[in-house]
């Protein structure tokens, strides 16, 4: 029996470390080798999808190993319907991100590909860990490669952005560490068994009250900063704008999902009473994020910044879905995480492609691109429409389910959130119109080259998935529904046990 989850998780990181040993004169092999590793990782993760039994409750492909028995720490990994999609999203986006850096990153290639592959291991580890200690190790360790990606290969203001990213995230996550320790000791004190094992801790019915509230808040702060939930979002525009394209794709596509994943995986099952109690607050912040993110996006002169702020809005929708605590909302939230990863990832890729040609991201510098680069413009249209939630493409499915769920919980909030979709259409289409339609206003834009083969190869898989999820979402939602049902049942059982 192959420990598939471990292989998928550690292959990229180990390969990344091995690539560091490649001598300077052989650096031509670095990019193909790194891309090869990322593709192989993706292919190895496919059996997880096909072998995943959607009818089963609980974790699959579980692996359990001894690590620090006296502390109750074990090596425990596995996936369920929630982590499956995020693992696949990660392994899917990483080859594309690496391929996108083919032409744009020239400096210190060896370090770059190694850092990206180590980053992939960190992110996958976060999604597959079923032990709180192991989870925290990956959660913190992953910060450092991302810090280097922004700080070394980023834009002019990269150092500020990198430090801000690390400090914001650290402050949230160290408080989570205290909460993890508190949970560990509370469970150990109550049952005599000291363990960090998540499935075991999730069975524990904690009394509602101050202790649970504080632990919830500590976890929630760590995750809210990562999501980022309004008002903890201020690191995001800096980090996204300064990061190189490949970094932005991973940051938006995967890293932000670690926050929403944390709410689903830890906050809801471990602290259900506090989740219910603070639900309205999170709900409100999510709606503010949806509208605020959309408004700020509208006025951005820089395309990358616009896409960055649109993430605040989209992730607000995801948070809304999670805290509906009902089936439609949660499934919608989960699928919207994947959608956002695909569509925003694709937007960053395309903004990066245009930046490489023109060395500008300002909307005002463009216009009439359809006449110059029609293929680029057509794919850009698909991605733009996907991002604003056009029916038939992926974004619609997630937002629709979230709003259905949200209306059951709080119709007024849901109505407010719906305006976010309208604003999304405003800022995306307005940006698209100014960039692509009309006459070519600047001479520099007349000789832009259309998509290269490499760029086609990067974009076609994303666009295919965007259409596939839009037309037949059941291929993805079907894998998650049982898990989500079980999660809701667990939350309900634990909260009603305390009444």
């Amino acid at each position: 029996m192959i420990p598939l989850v471990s292989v998928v998780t550690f292959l990229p990181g180990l390969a990344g470390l091995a690539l560091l040993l490649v001598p300077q004169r052989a650096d031509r092999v670095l990019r193909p080798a790194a891309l090869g590793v990322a593709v192989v990782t993706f292919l190895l993760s496919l059996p997880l999808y096909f072998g995943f039994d959607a009818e089963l409750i609980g974790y699959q492909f579980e692996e359990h190993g001894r690590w620090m028995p006296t502390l109750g720490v074990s090596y425990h990994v596995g996936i369920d319907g929630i982590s499956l999609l995020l693992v696949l999203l990660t392994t899917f986006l990483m080859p594309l991100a690496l391929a996108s850096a083919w032409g744009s990153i020239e400096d210190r290639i060896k370090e770059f590909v190694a850092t990206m592959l180590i980053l992939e291991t960190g992110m996958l580890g976060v999604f597959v860990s079923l032990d709180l200690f192991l989870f925290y190790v990956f959660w913190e360790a992953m910060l450092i490669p991302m810090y280097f990606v922004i700080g070394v290969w980023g834009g002019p203001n990269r150092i500020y952005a990198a430090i801000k990213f690390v400090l914001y995230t650290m402050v949230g996550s160290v408080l989570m560490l205290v909460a993890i320790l508190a949970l560990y000791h509370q469970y150990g004190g109550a049952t005599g068994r000291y363990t960090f094992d998540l499935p075991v801790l999730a069975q524990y019915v904690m009394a509602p009250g101050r202790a649970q509230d504080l632990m919830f808040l500590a976890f929630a702060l760590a995750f809210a900063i990562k999501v980022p939930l309004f008002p903890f979002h201020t690191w995001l525009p800096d980090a996204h704008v300064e990061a190189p394209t490949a970094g932005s794709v991973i940051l938006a596509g995967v890293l932000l999902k670690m926050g929403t994943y944390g709410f689903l995986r830890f906050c809801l099952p471990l602290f259900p009473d506090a989740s219910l109690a603070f639900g309205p607050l999170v709900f409100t912040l999510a709606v503010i994020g949806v509208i605020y993110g959309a408004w700020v996006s509208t006025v951005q002169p820089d395309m990358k910044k616009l896409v960055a702020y649109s993430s605040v809005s989209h992730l607000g929708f995801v948070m809304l879905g999670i805290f509906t605590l009902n089936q439609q909302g949660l499934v919608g939230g989960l699928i919207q995480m994947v959608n956002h990863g695909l569509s925003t990832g694709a937007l960053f890729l395309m903004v990066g492609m245009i930046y490489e040609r023109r060395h500008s991201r300002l909307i005002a510098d463009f216009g009439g691109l359809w006449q110059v680069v029609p293929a680029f413009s057509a794919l850009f249209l698909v991605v733009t429409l996907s991002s604003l939630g056009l029916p038939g493409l992926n974004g619609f499915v997630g937002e629709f389910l979230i709003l259905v769920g949200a209306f059951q919980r709080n119709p007024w909030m849901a109505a407010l959130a719906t305006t976010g979709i309208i604003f999304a259409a405003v800022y995306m289409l307005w940006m698209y119109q100014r960039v692509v339609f009309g006459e070519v206003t600047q001479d520099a834009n007349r000789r832009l080259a259309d998509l290269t083969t490499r760029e086609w190869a990067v974009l076609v898989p994303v666009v295919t998935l965007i259409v596939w999820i839009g037309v037949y979402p059941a291929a993805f939602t079907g894998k998650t529904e049982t898990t989500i049902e079980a999660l809701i049942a667990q939350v309900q059982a634990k909260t009603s046990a305390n009444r």
Partner: protein
Amino acid sequence: MDAIVFPPVLIGPLLPTLVVLAAAALVLVLDVVPWAIPREVAAMVALAGMIGALLATLARWSAPGRAFRDMVVLDNFALFFNVVICYAGALIVLLSMDYLRRTGSESSEYWALVLFATAGMMLLAAAGDLVVVFLALELMSLSLYVLAGLFKRELASGEAAMKYFLLGAFASSFLLYGIALIYGATGTTNLDRIAAAIASRPRDPLFGIGLGLLMVGFGFKISSVPFHMWVPDVYQGAPTSVTALIATGSKAGAFAALIRVLTVTLRGVPPDWAALLWVIAAVTMTVGNVVALAQSNLKRMLAYSSIAHVGYMLVGLVAGGVGGAGSVLFYLLTYTFTTAGAFGVITLCERARGEAVEVSDYAGLARRHPVLAAALGLFLLSLVGIPPLAGFVGKFYVFGAAVRAGYFWLAVIGVLNSAAAAYYYLRVVVFMYMREPEGAATTYASSFAGSLALAIALLAIVLLGVMPAPFVDLAQAAVAPLLR
């Protein structure tokens, strides 16, 4: 009146210390023999002394022994510290070899003094009597005072030695006065007998004042706030290899004595003193980190960071119990390798005008000396507490003990401190990886021994980070007998 009985001489429990002292004596003899001896021999003898002491320590593992009427107690607690101190000593010897030659300060006194200081630290860890605590502390401190002033032609080095000596002597007198008061209150200086004497009257004011004065002395040696004023100047002015020894070995020795004195003498006493330590721990880590934020000199920054780390270790001491004290031991183990490594990198970096001590001297290091930069980066990340490096496990364990003992808010202060600390550690990484040098670049002063020391330290911080379980168990087993 009892007849005077000459105690049986058992040198077994002193064996690790004696190995180091024998090496020191040999170094001194080699210096005066009439025929010419290669300079490397003294360094090799010193290294052999450290390794021999380490082997002697391992040979006596789990074979506790007491000697000289319980004045020396070689239990697993002392042996654990011996391992830490021997590693620190061996790393410093390796780092010093080429560093001294480069700076033109090679002399056999250096090796002898390093060995004497190490012997003092080891004796400190095994002291079962306040008199031995004082003697060992002085053996260690006097050697270090001289070592700090090794660079005779440099003003900063002399200033460091002078400050260290004056303040250290002052602190020693506090310690001695405390010992005298405790002797007055209990009629003994033996730790076990003090515990027995004090158990029936835990509120004895004389004992309380004596213990307080003792804490002042220890506070100076471990450099906790408010007795930390000497640290930045001494760490900055002393030769870097000596700084590494002060920061690792002397701290380990002083912590060993502090933990033993506190846990043994206060065994049967309600833990009111924890409230005082709570405040000292919180203030120490906050002051260390906040001031470190503003430093531009790497050695000075590491000095303030070491103060902050003392604060973290005090958190473990506040938590108490096997978990709390054990966490301090484990933390010291990780901290020793990490700090020795970080100072070690400085000894290997050279500029046209002497050492590379400014943070900005490290600009662009990653491009020219990627391995050296990666090593310093890993040591700093371990000091931040990024998993899977040793520093993370140390913090995890210390704060875990605090949470377990109910000190949530102290743990919160601690973790917020470590998040803030990320800023100044990562600033060095910023210079190494994200900036280019202005003017002359820092070069790598090639040294096989120094590189070997760094490799050992790196291996240790990765091993302690990924596989900490056996060492955590050892640390707990080492403190368990004290808390009986």
